[in-house]
């Protein structure tokens, strides 16, 4: 006998076998990318905004610092220092080119032979390069003239470029007070053009040399007695003419 349950028109159904459906969620790469991109964008937006603010502040600080530096600069100080420096340069340039005329005289003195007399001397300074000396010279013979030229050339101070010109001879008669001729002599006169480079005669201040004192107000001319003394001393000087070129 079959059970009533078997007579049912409803088809029998076996024990339900539930299908084990896999519930693995599918996450697509695109989803990852989109999320990452979105978050990265949001983060970078915030970061860029904040960093931009920071950078702007830093720029403001730099501008302020630069303005402070500029405002601390003093144009007056610069002008004062520049003027001082320029004044020093100008003074230095004159000091470097300061020469000793006395050295020129001494060089001329040393290079002048005993039988020579310089009758007239002109000296011109050409810029800061050299002195040009033009001397009218008298001597007793041509030999002395040649010897004198050699002495000038041998001088360490006078440049070797020496021009001797206008060599003339004259007969000079020595007369007494009555006008009678005692003796006659030959005078050879010539003109010498000499050059002395300034570098050869620099002024060297000596510690022993007295500085020119502060000038008193009064000005006085030497009196006649002093002049007379000067004359006598000049006569003495003339006696030792070998040492004096003029």
């Amino acid at each position, binding site marked *: 006998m079959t059970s009533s349950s078997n007579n049912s028109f409803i088809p029998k159904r076996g024990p339900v076998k539930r299908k084990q459906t896999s519930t693995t969620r599918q996450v697509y790469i695109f989803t990852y990318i989109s*999320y990452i991109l979105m978050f990265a964008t949001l983060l970078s937006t915030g970061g860029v905004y904040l960093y931009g603010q920071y950078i702007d502040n830093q720029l403001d600080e730099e501008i302020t610092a630069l303005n402070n530096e500029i405002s601390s600069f003093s144009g007056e100080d610069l002008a004062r220092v520049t003027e001082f420096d320029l004044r020093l340069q100008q003074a230095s340039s004159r000091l470097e080119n*300061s*020469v000793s005329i006395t050295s020129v005289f001494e060089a001329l003195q040393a290079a002048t032979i005993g039988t020579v007399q310089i009758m007239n001397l002109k000296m011109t300074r050409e810029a800061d390069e050299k002195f040009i000396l033009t001397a009218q010279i008298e001597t007793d013979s041509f030999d002395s003239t040649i010897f004198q030229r050699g002495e000038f050339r041998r001088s360490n101070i006078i440049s070797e470029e020496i021009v001797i010109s206008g060599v003339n001879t004259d007969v000079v008669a020595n007369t007494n007070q009555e006008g009678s001729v005692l003796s006659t002599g030959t005078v050879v006169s010539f003109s010498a053009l000499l050059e002395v480079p300034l570098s050869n005669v620099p002024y060297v201040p000596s510690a022993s040399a007295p500085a020119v004192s502060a000038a008193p107000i009064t000005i006085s001319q030497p009196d006649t007695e002093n002049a007379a003394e000067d004359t006598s001393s000049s006569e003495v000087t003339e006696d030792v003419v070998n040492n004096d070129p003029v």
Partner: protein
Amino acid sequence: MIPKGLFAQIGMVILSVAIIITYVEPAFRDIGEVQDNIAVYQTEKEKVSLVNDQLNSLLQIQKDVSLVDQNRLLTYMPDEDTIDPIAIPRDLALISVQAGVIYKNAAFVGSSDKSSADVTEEDPQAYTFSYSVEGTYTQVKNLFSLLEQNHYPLEVRDLSISRIEGGFLSVEMTIDTYAYRNSLPTNTLVF
């Protein structure tokens, strides 16, 4: 079948790209420019700072120069307006007296009128004086020795020596003295 979130994801991507294009990238560019500006400002600040430091050190050097030396410099190279055409002949007369020569004459001739092309910054303004004396050779040498030692430059430019009566020498010369020439432009653009 299209997943539900796909449109949202595409929207996010589009929005992200839009944000990047419209904000992030320009902001980066701006930041780069600002950083460049900062670098420029820093460089300029360093330059100005360097100039200030140099100026301060130079000021200190100038302050370290003693007042005596500063006065000597001012005496040696005075300002242009302090050159006195009477005081210098007076000094020449006094030097003549000290040297023992007979002072004949001294007068102001003029100032140098070099063309601007010839003048350098180191060239002071020259003032020329004529000066004539009489004396012996020794006295004349003494005179030149005193002129060399003067507190301000007295440069002999031209010199003529000739014999006169009594063994004396007549000396005529032109002498240059100098004053500070301010060749700095008045309105200097510093920076």
